[in-house]
């Protein structure tokens, strides 16, 4: 674990660069975390992040990928409701990379 200065804040990050204190998240932090992943946040990127955060607020876990793709399909159009599109947005994987930017803990297990 390490303290890192980012977006004008002292952030607690774990070994993989995920926030350990979810309270520290805000939009600037998301932008800064996205930069470390080489991602420029577009509106579509934000749709994913916002949905992840809403889902997490309710269920304390990231959604199943299938739930995420379906939701994105509803929001951005059916042709975008698939894993391929999500990987275009987040090449490191929607579960891991998008969760990091959304300030969620890293999903670990057999995933």
């Amino acid at each position, binding site marked *: 674990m390490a303290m890192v200065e980012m977006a004008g804040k002292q952030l607690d990050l774990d070994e*993989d660069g995920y926030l350990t204190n979810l309270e520290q998240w805000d939009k600037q932090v998301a932008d800064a975390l996205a930069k470390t992943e080489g991602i420029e946040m577009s509106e579509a990127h934000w749709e994913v992040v916002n949905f992840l955060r809403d889902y997490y607020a309710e269920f304390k876990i990231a959604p199943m*990928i299938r739930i995420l793709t379906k939701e994105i399909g509803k929001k951005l159009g059916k042709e975008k409701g698939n894993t391929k599109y999500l990987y275009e947005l987040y090449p490191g994987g929607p579960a891991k990379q998008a969760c990091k930017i959304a300030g969620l803990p890293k*999903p670990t297990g*057999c995933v």
Partner: protein
Amino acid sequence: MAKTDFEIPKLEHPVKIPAIMEGASSHLSIHPANEQMKTKLGFPEKRVDNWQETAIAKLGELKDKYRSLKIFLDVCVKCGSCADKCHYFLGTGDPNNMPVARQELMRKVYRKNFTIGGKLFGSLARAEDLTEEVLKEWVTYFHQCSQCRRCSVFCPFGIDTAEITMAAREIMDSIGVGHKYSLEIIGKVHDTGNNLGIPKPALTSTLEFLEEDVKETTGADVKFPLDVEGAEVLMVVPSADFFSSPHVDSLVGYAKVFHAAGVSFTFSSHASEFANFGMFVGNYAQMQKIAGRIVQAAHDLKVKRIVVGECGHAWRVAYSFWNTLVGPFDFLDQAHPAPQHICEFTNGLIKRGALKLDKSANDEFTVTFHDSCNVARASRMGDTPGGQFEIPREILKATCNKYVEMPEEVNRERTFCCGGGGGLLTDELMELRVKGAAPKAAALKEMMDEKGVNVMAMICAICKAQFTKVLPYYDIPMETVGGVHQFVSNAIQLGDK
């Protein structure tokens, strides 16, 4: 593909023996477990002061308790036949990843402390103390073994490096040196019932989502029941099936099979995990505790049978250890195996003609099968020898028109590990995972180029997760990875039953 700071091996099948590069993967190390993760599982929170003594005592205890471990440490004749059989050696060229060299990391300490020659002649007898340096080698190279047991197939004495690795990890945990990935996950099973940490409300909503989704696509009322008392079958799956793709496609497949067969089943929120990482850390008490949740759920839900999903190492735990650890299963219906693999269940129905299958639903696919290590080399399935190989293949052949075998030298008991098994499916080891996948990926690539294969089916959640992440490094699309029940799901006809 993702940027890398390491060289990606060139795929060649049959795989070439690499030039030896001392220390080629010595920089790859694990994230240590934190204090909280360790104390939760009863391990020391920090490395204990007298760690050398403690570790040697533990090694002594383990070698006395498990005769096989002592034999494995005693009988190696250095014939070298295992040396080029490990995917991590083939992928990295690091000589410490030769199975015999990996074993030597423990053997030299064993000799020094437990054999007369080693005590008297020290390094002349290739004996060494467990120094800081040696412990560092242990941490590194016992986390570069996926416990796949391929080496043991080629050893004239059947020496099983996996068992040595498990013992090494158990010894390290006992002195307060542990791997974050495995220990964190074991902690989550105890808290939430599954490796991913999915709480019950999330599980409920996920299953409701799937019911709706299947209804939309097929029109059928396929159920995904949770915690239903009195169901005939308790279905226990790796929790990745509730989260990842392509895992979920097999989950849908299981539910459709139960629906078509008219057999009532339920998932359990208490035992929402089939995986059992207790095995990866060589800890029987943890293995027992994790498996115990499943038996508890079976009692609570008053089921008659337990059927388990597509998960390789957990099948080994269930098949080889459940009875001793958490048996007997005499409270279940004795007319069925306990536990029963979903592949046995489905194949039984297929053979009886009880499922309506339309193979043409899979006509866009030319399918091959990847044998997962723990199923292939550490367990069986069904009631005939080799069932663990034939049953999943029979299902694929019954559901797909185009099925192709992998080359013999990487197939059945000679299969190569996906590169992510044994508790190594973690991002800090990505370089190792990519390199270790090379031998199997090379065979797959050849099948794609020569035979038009476009999917590789498997029955292991770790293999699925690992391959979807690492195959793209070799320009093989992640969609190439599938679960066996995904093809059942495509082919099965859910008309009136």
